[in-house]
């Protein structure tokens, strides 16, 4: 069985400072990994995905994530936070059977 652990339920940063949202996964197969963002009262939007190509993945809105197999991690980063980045972020793992599992989510707060 596969699973995802998002290590922080809440992260608070100041505008213009770096963002780090942590995600660790467990999978018996070579996984595909995703980050999604959910703004209040809205659906999920795909930020980026890793599917066994380059380990450093660039996504929308300046976000990127690095797949580290030795650490079973897929942390999401952004060099400079913007107020509009405030939202809930979900890390997702999917295996070759297309079964997907969500992390519990990390709420990002951006202070002015």
């Amino acid at each position, binding site marked *: 069985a596969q699973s995802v652990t*998002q290590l922080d339920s809440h992260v608070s940063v100041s505008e213009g400072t770096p963002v780090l949202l942590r995600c660790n996964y467990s999978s018996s197969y070579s996984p*595909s990994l*995703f980050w999604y963002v*959910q703004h209040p*009262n*809205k*659906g*999920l939007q*795909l930020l980026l*995905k890793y*599917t066994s190509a380059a380990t450093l993945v660039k996504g929308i809105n300046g976000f990127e994530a690095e797949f580290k197999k030795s650490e079973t991690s897929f942390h999401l980063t952004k060099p400079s936070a913007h107020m509009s980045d405030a939202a*809930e972020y*979900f890390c*997702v793992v*999917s295996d070759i*059977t*297309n*079964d*997907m*599992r*969500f*992390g*519990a*989510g990390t709420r990002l707060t951006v202070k002015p």
Partner: protein
Amino acid sequence: SQTIHQWPATLVQPVGSPLSLECTVEGTSNPNLYWYRQAAGRGLQLLFYSVGIGQISSEVPQNLSASRPQDRQFILSSKKLLLSDSGFYLCAWSAPDTQYFGPGTRLTVL
């Protein structure tokens, strides 16, 4: 192109009333289908998933049920809603390397 529909978008129901949320997908065949719930202040919780018609797996015990009468139709139901059933319900389907999500249904149980 792949599309996923959910309805209704919002719903307000009294405690004890029945529930039926529908999800349909387009642009694929034999997808894995999922129902998730997001309660206030909590992450996404997997409720049910289906790998084929009539095949439903339940992840958590609850007063909800799911059915898949057709390949691209997934229905979430309840005979009697509880206050704790309030939340945001998302339908999704997965394909190699990606997932698609519906717009969600916001359910308020009063």
